[in-house]
């Protein structure tokens, strides 16, 4: 009798959670599709991602290919966005640069989120001294403002792709940890958890099957918004001479390199900055749309 009751109760409660999640994601999709701006932003992003992924196939030139005849050339039919100081095609470099920027943004954001979910869940779920220690460490990291921390980390770890990902990820992690932790705390007292405990679900099971689906939406929104600011931070770092450096075609680095010849060859600074702007704009617009779709009440 007890075993049967447990099975039924378990099936009922997990069916409830699953059903809720299914209709929730379908509802979200519906709302998202109605938001034209967000859909447009998503399409633009998809184009950028495709361009970045298929860069070698699309770009007219390699990113290191030098055209000695056309140094610092302005936009023309041969080089749509012109060339830089050693004859490299700006458009091709921008498209390749997308690979770096987008990968940086995505990896750093994911790294940060995964760390935050794990650490935040532990802090929120177990409480006590573990929670305290984790919070103190977060306090210390947050004592230094984000950009400054990234600068210091990047200066110490040196330039380079992986190093930059780590440097960028660390700054945002404490606030994500706090977010996860507060979601776990708020959900901890909920009744359906008591019900699960009352039928002897194990702790890990509770955490993953009951808690996580319900706190996913703020986390997803946080990640999406985070990517935009990480890309911005990455290009700021490159602009200052840290992070990813030439000859790698990172957008911020290209801007920095083109700075000195801005008077004579403005195209070297206009285009890289423009693409950073468009990318961040699309990510932010999509992130906003996603957040509105996931919780329409938050919209206002």
């Amino acid at each position, binding site marked *: 009798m007890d075993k049967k009751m447990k099975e039924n109760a378990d099936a009922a409660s997990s069916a409830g959670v699953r059903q809720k999640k299914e209709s929730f994601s379908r509802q979200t999709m519906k709302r998202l599709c109605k938001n034209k701006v967000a859909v447009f932003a998503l399409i633009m992003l998809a184009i950028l991602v495709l361009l970045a992924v298929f860069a070698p196939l699309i770009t007219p030139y390699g990113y290191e290919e030098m055209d000695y005849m056309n140094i610092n050339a302005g936009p023309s039919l041969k080089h749509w966005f012109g060339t830089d100081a050693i004859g490299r095609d700006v458009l091709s470099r921008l498209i390749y640069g997308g690979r770096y920027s987008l990968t940086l943004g995505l990896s750093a954001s994911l790294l940060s989120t995964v760390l935050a979910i794990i650490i935040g869940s532990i802090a929120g779920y177990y409480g006590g001294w573990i929670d305290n220690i984790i919070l103190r460490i977060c306090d210390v990291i947050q004592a230094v403002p984000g950009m400054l921390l990234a600068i210091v980390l990047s*200066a110490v770890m040196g330039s380079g792709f992986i190093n930059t990902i780590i440097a960028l990820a660390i700054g945002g992690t404490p606030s994500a940890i706090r977010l996860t932790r507060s979601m776990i705390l708020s959900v901890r007292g909920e009744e359906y958890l008591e019900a699960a405990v009352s039928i002897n679900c194990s702790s890990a099971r509770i955490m993953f099957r009951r808690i996580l689906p319900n706190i996913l939406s703020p986390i997803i929104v946080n990640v999406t918004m985070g990517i935009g600011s990480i890309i911005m931070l990455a290009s700021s770092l490159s602009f200052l001479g840290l992070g990813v450096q030439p000859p790698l075609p990172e957008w911020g680095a290209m801007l920095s390199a083109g700075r000195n010849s801005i008077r004579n060859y403005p195209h070297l600074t206009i285009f890289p900055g423009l693409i950073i702007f468009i990318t961040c704009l699309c990510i932010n617009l999509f992130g906003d749309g996603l957040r509105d779709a996931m919780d329409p009440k938050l919209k206002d």
Partner: protein
Amino acid sequence: MRNYILKRLVMTVFVVISAAFLIFTIMYFIPGDPARLLLGTEATVEQIEAKREAMGLNDPYLIRLGRYLYDAFIKFDLGDSWYTGVPVITELSNRLPRTVFLGCMCVIVSVVVALPLGITAAVHHNKWQDRACMVLAMACVSMPDFWLALMMVLVFSLHLGLLPSFGIESWQCYILPVIAGSLQGIGQLARQTRSSMLDVYRSDYVTTARAKGVAEKKVIYQHMLPNALIPVITIIGGQFGRCVAGTIVIEQVFSMPGIGSYLSTAINSRDYPILQGSIIVMAIFVALVMLAVDLVYAYVDPRIKAQYVAQSKRRRRVKQNG
């Protein structure tokens, strides 16, 4: 109330020491040998070793940490530049006021532009004014400030010759940097103001005010705004702090002699004492600004006196997320 101030002061001290600790620890792991760098490539092994002893580089981590914290906070000595030998603290005290001035200007412009933008968007919720303001705010947040700075230099200095593009001799020198520096702040503040106002818009006390026969304009400015501004104050404070960090790029682009350009030069020349000292000073500055914001907050919100614990916890979260 005094408890609240005391509590915040203690927290600030903790934050300041943590920042110094964190930065020192991170920079402890810088590759390369400072002694060798300073003595040059012809130095002998003995000379390098002697230099290392003199600089205290062979001492264990905790001793070096202690010595650094003591030097920094008691003797106000942040070390000397490896390249020029000038004490970091001297340069910083010359440059800090200029950066603070620039930061203040940015925040003031940001508030003056963003608040009306956010209020308009909220009051005309879902109409064209709302969308226009929010598109503008979104563009501000997504635009790289260093790019806008360069574009403005291109148009206004190089092509039109209207405004200077470097230095700080005249007030015109500040126009472009302040616009570029306040940009992100405007975007973020406008969005926050709008959402604060909308939160308040649907409050019951607003309906009560309307039911009393208060005219709509008065409802907005006397009932909604004072309540909506309370969380916004925290954001403004955070912006102040972030302005100081953000001016790094602006000062570099516009060649303004503040902490930011000092820092970016140090990055390029790998002059680590400057890097270390500047960042710590900036972090301290941010912490002090947040303390000031919290104190202003306490005066503005009558509920603080009774509920300061809940408020400060919540505000820390907003600050971290903001």
